[in-house]
């Protein structure tokens, strides 16, 4: 690592009411390196990015770019200094074209003050050529609406590339919603950015990615700087240890499961939905964790939404405990004891502006009513507190607003609401997406605890290690069809991937 230091942030501190989000943190980025930023949720990674790009003002500290002290008060200052962030949630004007989105806020103008469309499309094409690879396949006149997440990311990167003085580009959880193929392309692109002598900051929860593309890693914990190390000198466990401050056994002990005596919980017969999935037949049992593995878009989430009647399906029957049931609306599913921890935590899981107790009691209002059928504040508090204690939800009180919790605690709150509602069959869709390792371990422990208590747990996941780590049985899907249904007994990653990807 001998590139010139392009960005240096020293002794940065930032407090919010009640929390010290950053406490004397320093980091330096060199030209031509990919620098990973690691830490649990709430460790201060995002805050640090936001301070560097001027979205937050810092309380103390200094930022310098190429050796000169920089005053960054807002995002435009940051751009002026050549610092650009590709955010996790990409904000696009979806009805506008690719080129318009690239130049959003910076449209080229003619001398008479109207938009110079010709120039804009020409410049956009030039950027495309400069990036090459999959960027070349984009049509700059297409609307953004129908593009994949990967392509939207490309637009963000092109936005950054407009500036000739671009020095640092930061990626915040860039792969969290990309398919495997798109991820590969992104890695190629990052290597390309690196060879252009840019400094790249890479924030991710996926440690395997850090080992693939990063040169150095800086770990933060509870807002404090832990260490900066060369990636080739350390191991996965080293990073985890630095992040959580202790050794962490992510998946815990392998559960001992007696599969002969298990009662069938839910059976799906002949599920079809044109273009999404077909001929789906499977059974899940009480006391087991059934994993659904497949690439993004294999149809797993759609099947679960079909069972729960969130989305329609063409054909198919559902049997619960051997009895045929007719689920037409989600409330029927919840009445039958099915819980659904959705993939989109914030959009479909929680009421972010409401209190924790309102969120926990939402699926089971009957539990908090008194004999006259009226909601009792005392019962509700008690009910919510039980859930919070059971799942170790860290919040000031049951009256805390759900949106202020960390991702891990939000996820636990969603799990709490279903378990408190006495659901026997709980579907988890990507339950650990975007949450840190500490919270992940807790979510796994909860799922196992539920299975041990005789509940039926179904997990949809795109991450192989967790699927292999905690599932008793694994169903592999590809392009809307079930390719394999295997007991997880000495299975290897290859055994599963073989079915998940086309030959």
């Amino acid at each position: 690592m001998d590139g010139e230091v392009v960005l240096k942030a020293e002794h940065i501190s930032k407090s919010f009411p009640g929390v010290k989000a950053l406490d004397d943190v320093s980091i330096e980025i060199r030209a031509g390196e990919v620098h990973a930023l690691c830490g649990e949720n709430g460790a201060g990674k995002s805050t640090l990015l936001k301070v560097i790009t001027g979205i937050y003002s810092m309380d103390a500290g200094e930022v310098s770019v190429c050796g000169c002290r920089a005053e960054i008060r807002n995002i435009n200052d940051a751009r002026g200094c050549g610092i650009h962030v590709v955010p996790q949630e990409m904000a696009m004007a979806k009805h506008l074209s690719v080129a318009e989105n690239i130049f959003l806020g910076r449209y080229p103008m003619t001398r008479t003050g109207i938009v110079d469309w010709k120039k804009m499309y020409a410049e956009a094409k030039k950027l495309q050529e400069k990036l090459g690879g999959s960027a070349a396949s984009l049509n700059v006149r297409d609307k953004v609406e129908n593009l994949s997440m990967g392509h939207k990311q490309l637009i963000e990167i092109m936005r950054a590339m407009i500036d000739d003085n671009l020095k640092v580009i930061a990626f915040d959880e860039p792969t969290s919603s990309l398919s495997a193929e798109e991820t590969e392309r992104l890695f190629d692109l990052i290597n390309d950015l690196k060879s252009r002598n840019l400094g790249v900051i890479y924030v991710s929860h996926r440690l395997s990615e850090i080992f693939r593309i990063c040169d150095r890693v800086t770990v933060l914990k509870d807002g404090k700087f832990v260490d900066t190390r060369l990636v080739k000198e350390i191991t996965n466990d080293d990073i985890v240890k630095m992040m959580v401050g202790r050794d962490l056994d992510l998946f815990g002990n392998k559960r001992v499961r007696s599969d002969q005596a298990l009662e069938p919980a839910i059976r799906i017969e002949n599920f079809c939905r044109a273009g999404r999935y077909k001929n789906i037949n499977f059974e899940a049992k009480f006391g087991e964790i059934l994993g659904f593995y497949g690439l993004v878009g294999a149809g797993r989430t759609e099947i679960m939404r079909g069972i729960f009647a969130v989305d329609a399906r063409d054909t198919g029957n559902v049997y619960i405990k051997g009895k045929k049931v007719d689920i037409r609306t989600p409330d029927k599913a919840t009445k039958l004891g099915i819980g659904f921890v959705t993939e989109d935590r914030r959009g479909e899981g929680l009421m972010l502006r409401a209190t924790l107790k309102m969120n926990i009691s939402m699926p089971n209002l009957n539990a908090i009513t008194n004999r006259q059928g009226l909601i009792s504040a005392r019962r509700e508090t008690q009910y919510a507190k039980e859930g919070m204690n059971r799942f170790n939800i860290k919040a000031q009180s049951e009256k805390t607003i759900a949106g202020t919790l960390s991702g891990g605690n939000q996820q636990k709150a969603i799990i709490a609401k279903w378990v408190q509602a006495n659901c026997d069959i709980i579907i988890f869709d990507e339950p650990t997406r975007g949450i840190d390792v500490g919270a992940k371990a807790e979510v796994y422990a909860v799922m196992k605890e539920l299975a041990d208590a005789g509940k039926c747990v179904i997990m949809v996941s795109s991450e192989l290690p967790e699927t292999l780590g905690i599932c008793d049985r694994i169903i592999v899907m590809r392009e809307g069809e079930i390719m394999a249904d295997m007991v997880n007994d000495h299975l290897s990653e290859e055994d599963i991937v073989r079915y998940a990807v086309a030959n």
Partner: protein
Amino acid sequence: MNTAKRLYLKSKDTPGILTVFILVALVIIFSNTSKYFFTSDSLLAILLSASTVSYIAAGQFMVLLCGQFDMSVGNVAAMGGVLYALLVVKGLPVLLAMAIALGFGLLSGFIAGVCVSRFNTNAFITTFAQLQIYRGILFVLTGGSTISIDPNPAFRFIGTYKLFGVLQMPVVIMAAIFLSFWFILRFTKLGRSIYCVGNNAEAAKISGINVPRTITFCFLMTGFFAALSGVVFASRVNSGQPNLGATYALDTIAASVIGGTSMAGGKGNIWGAFIGILVVYVIQNGLIMSGVDSYYHYIITGLIMFFAVLAQTEKTKK
């Protein structure tokens, strides 16, 4: 100082408290600008004039709470009043005429509710279209002129009867409506569902709450209480007025917002909406009594609403 600050912060958490301060401030100001304002007669008159609109404010509050609007309320009220008067003139029994007028309100609310919740139409446009249709029907029915009623004590009962010789019926109805809405929102599963739907309709749906039914219920409430408002008003003034309620939609939305209701839904306090509608009427009546030229009323009302809403917004801290 600390107590004051704590109180201020608490008021930010509790929607509606700030509205009480605004109301008190307005009363103090108008008491100084008009010697007639702070008398029991004039305060009662204000309460009476606010009462019929307050029924709509209560309904509008429910609709806003689940994240929707109802722009049609003014003309539904006019339809309620005109139907009530017209049918009585045609010789129908008072109770039957009233039932038809109120039934019209329910039907109107039901149509809006079903369109918005099942067919996902935009609430603003849907209810605006209804408003236009009703305006047309009103012209057809009345030719644009007021329908007067021959002396008929039964017709006038609901708008003018004094309970125990003192309590005006419109005010009694107002109290009953607000108390029952408070009860529904605070203690029933239906009330809780409304909050949940307003907060996050997707999450509510997946948690087993019947979202279309909840939204439809709220529109039924605005429809019914708008019609009731028209009926009571017609009874009070002894005529059916096709031009009633031009400002009701905005007045009632303003009342809820002044009372701390979030326009995004899911957050609000029914008493805030109650105080809010009083604020709107205290401003209007106070200005008249203070002898302010009526042309200035709109400007001043607008400005006060503007600052009231500004004071209610949550601070977004960087």
